[in-house]
């Protein structure tokens, strides 16, 4: 894969999303391991690009969005964030799309999906270009973006996000938009994120089977970070840990840009499974006990708090089975600690401790376990806070909980995409040859 292929693929992705935006109706589907959520957004493109009342910059994108339909169903066929059963996932997507459409009373054709699997990997890219006419123009930025040397990330992987993070102009770094500045050499730091190809193909296939067009793909760790972190945290730098059902997503933001992302293939389902095994109860019961009585920090009172375990209908033994809450905490805590430690290892690997802002936001369904904040502070050694998604217009109350961060984040990403740079023209000497080669390949493939 060459540089300009990245350029072209990113531009195609962007163009697809823009065309969906122009249609004015986009469905957002979050394919999680424990639930599938769909939000239908009505988009006002004029408002999306409208300037602010005080004339400084643009309105925050979500002013132009409105959630007009929302539906959630229990997820099936998704394991560890990846599609394991095409049929079941298709049924789940059909369910949410149909009920969201019913609520919105419109038909949607364009879908933007997010998922947490695909074993994401982050790469940092550095591109350099000479500034041609003293002032940095869009073509200079295009040249710098095209110059970035793309690492060999393997054949069976695809780029899902590639965002310019930081521009450096003659030793002046930390620029977000160098257009119009004067300098000689422009370099750009890019963050590229790849996921496994078959996970994307599966997703495309699911949407095709539901008669939907997949016009955008976002990784849920990125989306959750966008929704759960505040403006200051995004600007100064911070990490978001999305404790999902099947996997735990990590994303580090700096200057509003994601600079690192990873996923731990451990999640709330593993906690449920531990309860299920440790207390010898069914998975559904275990899930219920976890959400109703679960906790992470035991006090002396918890020894006296007895929880009655519902009986399995096949079990004819007399008597009632009771456990104390301390026992439940004893089962849950090691697993949660394991997840957080794995997250800490990933953050350490990304040298998060050297970053200036070190706020960590916990979001996702798992972040609602009481006491998580306390042990997270101890394990991660940072300031930790639980995060809920930003409120966007029309979002139903039921969809404002922490587990909907990724869905809301996708809406924000849609409203304020940060990949405008790919619209900048690439230098002609790169495209021309590339186009001819592409045309040749097309002929070879099709004749």
């Amino acid at each position, binding site marked *: 894969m060459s540089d300009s292929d990245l350029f072209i693929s990113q531009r195609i992705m962007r163009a697809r999303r823009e065309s969906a935006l122009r249609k004015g109706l986009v469905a957002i589907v979050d394919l999680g391991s424990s639930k599938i959520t769909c939000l239908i957004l009505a988009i006002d493109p004029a408002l999306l690009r409208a300037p602010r009342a005080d004339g400084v910059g643009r309105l925050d994108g979500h002013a132009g969005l409105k959630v007009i339909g929302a539906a959630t169903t229990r997820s099936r066929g998704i394991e560890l964030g990846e599609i394991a059963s095409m049929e079941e996932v298709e049924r789940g997507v059909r369910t949410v799309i*149909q009920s969201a459409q019913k609520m919105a009373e419109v*038909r949607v054709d364009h879908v933007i999906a997010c998922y947490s699997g695909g074993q994401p990997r982050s790469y940092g890219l550095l591109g350099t270009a000479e500034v041609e006419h003293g002032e940095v123009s869009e073509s200079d930025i295009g040249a710098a973006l095209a110059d970035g040397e793309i690492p060999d990330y393997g054949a069976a992987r695809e780029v899902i996000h590639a965002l310019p993070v930081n521009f450096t102009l003659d030793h002046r770094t930390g620029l977000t938009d160098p257009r119009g500045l004067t300098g000689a050499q422009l370099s750009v730091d890019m963050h590229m994120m790849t996921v496994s190809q078959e996970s994307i193909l599966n997703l495309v296939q699911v949407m095709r089977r539901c008669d939907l067009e997949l016009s955008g793909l976002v990784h849920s760790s990125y989306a959750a970070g966008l929704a759960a972190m505040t403006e200051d945290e995004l600007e100064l730098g911070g990490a978001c840990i999305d404790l999902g059902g099947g996997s735990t997503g990590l994303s580090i933001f700096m200057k509003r840009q994601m600079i690192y992302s990873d996923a731990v293939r451990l999640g709330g389902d593993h906690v449920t499974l531990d309860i299920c095994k440790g207390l010898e109860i069914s998975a559904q019961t275990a899930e219920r006990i976890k959400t109703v009585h679960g906790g992470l920090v035991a006090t002396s009172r918890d020894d006296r708090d007895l929880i009655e375990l519902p009986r399995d209908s096949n079990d004819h033994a007399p008597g009632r089975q009771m456990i104390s809450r301390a026992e439940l905490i004893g089962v849950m805590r090691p697993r949660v600690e394991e997840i957080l430690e794995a997250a800490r290892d990933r953050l350490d690997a990304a040298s998060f401790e050297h970053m200036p802002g070190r706020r960590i936001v916990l979001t996702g369904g798992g972040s609602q376990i009481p006491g998580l904040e306390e042990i997270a502070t101890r394990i991660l050694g940072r300031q930790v806070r639980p995060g809920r998604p930003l409120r966007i217009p029309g979002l139903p109350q039921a969809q404002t909980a922490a587990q909907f961060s990724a869905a809301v984040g996708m809406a924000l990403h849609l409203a304020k995409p940060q990949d405008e740079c790919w619209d900048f023209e690439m230098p002609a000497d790169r495209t021309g040859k590339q186009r001819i080669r592409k045309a040749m390949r097309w002929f070879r493939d099709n004749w």
Partner: protein
Amino acid sequence: MRPVKRDYAPSRLRYRLARWWLSPRVRRTVTRWVPLGALAGIVGLVATDPANQAYAVERYQQTWAYIEARPEFAVTGVRIDGAGPVLSDRIRTALAVDLPASSLTLDLKAARDRVEGLPPIASAQIAVGADRQLVVRVRARTPVAAWRRADGLWLLDAEGVVIGSLERRELRSDLPLIVGRGAQRHVREALALAEAAGPLATRIEGVVRVGERRWDVVLDDDKRIMLPETGAVDALMHVLALQLSEEVMDRDVAVFDMRNRARPTVRLGEHAVHEMRRLRAMESGEDA
């Protein structure tokens, strides 16, 4: 073993149907165009059946006849304003309306045209009044002159329209008499002459159009004042001034020719000619 309970999901057909139903075009078609089309089809089928058409026409005519026959629309009489009894009879005849008639079927415009076609009528207004009378308001032409032609005596109004015949001149001796071909087109001029006559007014017998271009004023003793084509009234005033100062028309003058204003000419009567010759002879005799 119990069957595994699966979560609910709409079947693929159901899902597709729901989406199909939600697409705006389908929805509009089904909720608007299909009912409209069905309605149009039914109406068309019913309307193209000849029996139905005949029935509809019959019903329409019946209803219309019923409405026409209502006493509220009946016109029972005619009232004529602005015309004398003789003219009223003529108007009644010209109206040719069978009473009582329904006001819905009366063709008032045609009736008005017929009434205005009568010579003595300048204009007419016809309306159905509140008391169910046909009100005819006419403006009759007023005769301003009598016109003698080879076929008799006619009354003219100011525009030269022949109103009717006059049996004897004495019946309307108040009107000036006009004679000559084309005189009816210059009635106003003739009237102006008759009016301007002043001291001669009682002696004027009539005005004669000569050669369809100029006027002669004829006095009762067959004296004649010949006037020019233009400025006829001024020329007559000139003659009147001479009459007042010299009593020229009381003398034995046959014709006073004013055709050339610069050179008024007098043709003497027969007696005056003899008298003048005698006087001239006397003068020459004395001289001789």
